[in-house]
């Protein structure tokens, strides 16, 4: 069989691949199993524990990160799928020790209680506001439909996003 270079991503006996990616603007090189979950790589190998793990099956959004600007569930992403990508986690959202305005809005609008869902929520909101700077309530509900919060109720969360939307519309 005429195999292309891309055919086999692992050597015959060693079940690992070289993973080259950018995480929060830093280049990262790792050797991992090709089917390792991205969420485990972030949390266990790289100690980026801001990304949470809860359901493990794509239903709660606690593990949401951005891959090449798109929101994805790190629990559903296998290592080989993250190769050569650029990933932003919650740790990469704040700049120069300053929290992101979205995080500030969550704080001030009562957008969390225990905070477990919050990193995932913030990532989902970040992607939403990049695509739709002034979202409607329907846009917000749709964008957050994969993120569950078990203690706050969604009122404070939606308020936080609406506050961001109001600020964005003033800027425009």
């Amino acid at each position, binding site marked *: *069989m005429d195999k*292309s270079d891309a055919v086999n991503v692992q050597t015959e006996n060693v*079940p690992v691949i070289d993973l080259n990616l950018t995480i929060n603007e830093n280049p990262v090189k790792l050797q991992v199993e090709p089917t390792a979950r991205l969420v485990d790589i972030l949390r266990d190998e790289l100690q980026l524990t801001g990304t949470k793990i809860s359901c493990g*099956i794509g239903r709660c959004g606690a593990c949401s990160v951005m891959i090449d600007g798109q*929101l994805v569930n790190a629990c559903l992403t296998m290592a080989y799928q993250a190769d050569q990508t650029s990933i932003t986690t919650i740790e990469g959202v704040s700049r120069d020790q300053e929290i992101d305005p979205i995080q500030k809005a969550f704080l001030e609008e009562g957008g969390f209680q225990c905070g477990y869902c919050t990193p995932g929520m913030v990532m989902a909101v970040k992607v939403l506001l990049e695509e739709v700077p002034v979202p409607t309530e329907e846009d917000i509900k749709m964008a957050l*439909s*994969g993120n569950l919060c078990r203690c706050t109720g969604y009122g404070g969360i939606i308020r936080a996003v609406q506050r961001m939307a109001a600020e964005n519309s003033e800027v425009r």
Partner: protein
Amino acid sequence: MVNEHEPLMSGKPPTLPVPTKVWRPSDLSEAWEVKRQYGTEARYITGGTLIQLQREQGTPLAKHLISLDKINVLEGFDHLEDEGQFKLRIGALTTLSDCHRNVFIEEYWPILAEAIRHVASPAVRNRATIGGNVCYQVGDVIPALMVLEAEAVSFDGTTYLSNDIATYIQLINGEDHPILASISLPEPPVSAQVLSFFKKVGRREAFIPSIVTVACQGCINESGEVEYIRLAAGGGTASPKRLYECERFVQNKVLIEEDLGRLYEMVLQEYVPASDPFTTADYRKTVAANVIVSEFEKLIQ
């Protein structure tokens, strides 16, 4: 007291999971060859959302995963002209999000966009592919593709096959099933009034296997006659099916209230869903009949 050095359960010692090898062929022939080589030990993977879900639910990964993500011909959209008809070809690797954002789908095949909107969440849809949804055999997008008379183009190692969606879904049951390459959407029929709906009924609005999914694409002419009608229903573990008898009943009729009672009975007869621990087949039938008839009722009113 449990001795931590003793296994908690007697019997067979636990077997270690076999490490999975991931193959990333760059064309369909290579993918086919790898699958032939490893047979039942190999499985194709695209977005991997279903495979990862099943892995967490206890289905071990296949020993060989053949990722189709490097096969460029499986990506994106193409506009084709076929005997004067406009067609949209959607590569099997195209994500559900990209399909949802596509302006042509939104304008010409809105029930497909509507069906996609009901699959999982935005983050899942960013990875999940349209091909993976069809190959899942019970995906929510399937009833919409059926009523749009979409064609599945697949590769069987030597040639490309063209089948309707229902036939392709049956082919997947075979061990050496053809690789889905693309979905083609034919130009929708034009009419005075379009009758089109997609309804998913589940225990939650999205994110959960549906109890019933119903799709309809039809045309009503100036005289109020149903000139063209395609109906399909799915949900649960049974693959979606077209409801041909119901279509024949409605075809060429100017529907009146009494017809709806008959249509209700016909859906109950023709739609054959499966039972599961949460929902009986009878319940699914009733839901499907209610949804279809209530949509037609709106038409009469």
